């Protein structure tokens, strides 16, 4: 996942530095304020630990091996800001001293692993662990999932950075000038290895380390366990932000109408007989012509289910934009209702044990 020099264009590298710099600044200032004189030794030793942990190759089920980044452990034990700084420093030493990861791509590597990795790990851990006791097995599961998620989100970002290179940076003959594979190859190639091997290594080391700390040094886990009142306030705050964000997305949903054509692979039976739709399919599929007749499987299954609101356009509304917003509200509302129903059922089932 450490991107070497030459895989990303100078423009991508510059953008990565510009995006990552504010995170570094804020994280550094926050850590400086919180730790003061303890900052230098703590970050130095923890960066060294992160570096050493990356050298541990774990045997994984299936006979393969993988190494962890330790981002979840850093985020859980130090908090997200200090984790961002510690992992960034470990990555800098790796890039400069051991040639693992590039110098021009350093900010991209930090953004993927140190910044996004730390944030994903910390928040997924806090959300899953909730108010469980420090010694609770739930915290081990939360750490393992946090490690797995953080590493895979970082890998996905890396794949996207690779995948946009041939789209944006190629010469007149079509030669990709940097990473050569488009998103359709970069994402599966990157994610298969990380979902199945590297992510499992991160899952094992994160869960295993938190289990070890629970037995030997549980006070180290207190950093990521806010007091009950603070946690409630945080949850209320994040829930409020979530609702605002959801409302914003619903209002912005008509933006989908600006996109030309249909989404790749979402063609209907009627599209095969429309010359305009066939032309769009041809263009979207890299010059491969769609079949002359509707595929029999598609024809057979297309009539199995008829959507009550096809194409996000309720029959009772004549305005396309309003129809989009109403569809977004209805869809989100149904999902929220379903989740409320599930949580009520699960809560009822669990209540006798509490």
């Amino acid at each position: 996942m450490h991107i070497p020099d030459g895989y990303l264009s100078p423009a991508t590298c510059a953008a990565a530095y510009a995006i990552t710099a504010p995170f570094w600044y804020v994280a550094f200032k926050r850590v400086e304020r919180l730790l003061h004189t303890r900052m230098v030794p703590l970050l130095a030793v923890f960066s060294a630990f992160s570096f050493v942990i990356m050298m541990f190759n774990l045997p994984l089920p299936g006979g393969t091996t993988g190494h962890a980044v330790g981002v979840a452990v850093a985020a859980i034990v130090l908090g997200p800001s200090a984790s961002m700084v510690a992992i960034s420093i470990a990555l800098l030493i790796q890039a400069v001293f051991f040639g693992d990861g590039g110098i021009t791509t350093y900010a991209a590597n930090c953004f993927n692993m140190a910044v996004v990795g730390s944030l994903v790990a910390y928040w997924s851990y806090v959300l899953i662990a909730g108010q469980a006791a420090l010694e609770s097995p739930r915290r081990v599961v939360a750490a393992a999932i946090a490690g797995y998620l953080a590493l895979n989100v970082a890998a996905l970002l890396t794949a996207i950075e690779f995948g946009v290179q041939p789209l944006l940076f190629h010469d007149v003959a079509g030669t990709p000038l940097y990473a050569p594979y488009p998103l359709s190859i970069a994402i599966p190639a990157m994610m298969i290895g990380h979902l199945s091997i590297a992510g499992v290594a991160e899952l094992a080391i994160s869960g295993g380390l938190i289990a070890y700390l629970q037995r030997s040094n549980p006070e180290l886990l207190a950093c990521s366990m806010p007091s009950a009142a603070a946690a409630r306030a945080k949850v209320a705050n994040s829930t409020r932000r979530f609702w605002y964000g959801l409302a914003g997305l619903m209002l912005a949903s008509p933006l989908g109408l600006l996109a030309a054509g249909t989404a790749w692979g979402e063609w209907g039976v009627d599209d095969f007989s429309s010359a305009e739709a066939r032309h769009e399919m041809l263009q979207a599929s890299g010059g491969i012509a769609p079949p002359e007749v509707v595929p029999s499987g598609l024809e057979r299954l297309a009539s199995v289910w008829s959507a009550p609101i096809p194409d996000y356009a309720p029959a009772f509304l004549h305005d396309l934009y309003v129809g989009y917003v109403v569809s977004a509200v209805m869809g989100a509302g149904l999902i929220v209702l379903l989740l409320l129903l599930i949580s009520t059922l699960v809560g009822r089932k669990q209540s006798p044990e509490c």
Partner: protein
Amino acid sequence: MSPEAAAALRKPRRRHLAQRLAQGLLRAMDQAQASESLAAGDGWLQGLDPRSKLIGALALIVSVVLTHSLAVVVGLFALALLLAWRSQLLAAGVCQRLWLSVLLFSGTIALPALVLVPGRALWQLPLPGWAVSEQGLRSAALLIARAETSSTLALLLIVSTPWTHVLKAMRCLGAPLVLVAILGMTHRYLFVLAQTAAQLFEARRSRIVAPMNGAQQRALATSAAGVVLSKAFWLSNEVHLAMISRGYRGEVRLLDDFHAHARDWLALLGALSVPLLILWGER
């Protein structure tokens, strides 16, 4: 001899996980120490001012990424080779090890591009019938050449300059003082923790009498990581107390005592002119 015993003898003995991990950590430490001794050598790069070397290496690495011409990347690689030869680094074998590992890594990534990148077909592969495209070949060559050249340039900086001098040069060039101090301490304690981990694995290996299965090996690696983590915290507390006892109050001071000579300025000028020439030539 029973068939099982004969099969066991024929089967190559796999090293134990603890042994592999300990040896891997020790090898990394040996390589780092070898770089330090090379940096103290008497070569051309070793005699340059670290600030010129740092800026020059960065300028050349940026040049490698900036250019779209394979010939320019190959030219920069030749320059790196010349510098390595003049600095007696080729004989030490560090460059060769790096080239092999970069070739294996980038080669594995770049190889499928030969057939996956669409373009003018150059020739057909015999068995699967895939066509190697000109664009794919050029793209793979660019990727590998860039990775090899930029990693060689970074290596030349590190093996010709002691780490403390690299940090001082970073500070002279405006890197935050606290960052430089953390980097210096990280480098020092990296070896302390790596040695602790290696000793831990060695001690564990000496007490193993039967093969361990996958789950036991994972438990061993995880508990070792846990011990190293606990020791890291203990060490940070100890170091912090030691720093406080010596009067540390959050202010870091470094001694900057570099003196640039005419050839340092010339080397710097030469390195800085490369990206400018590339930008001008590829307008």
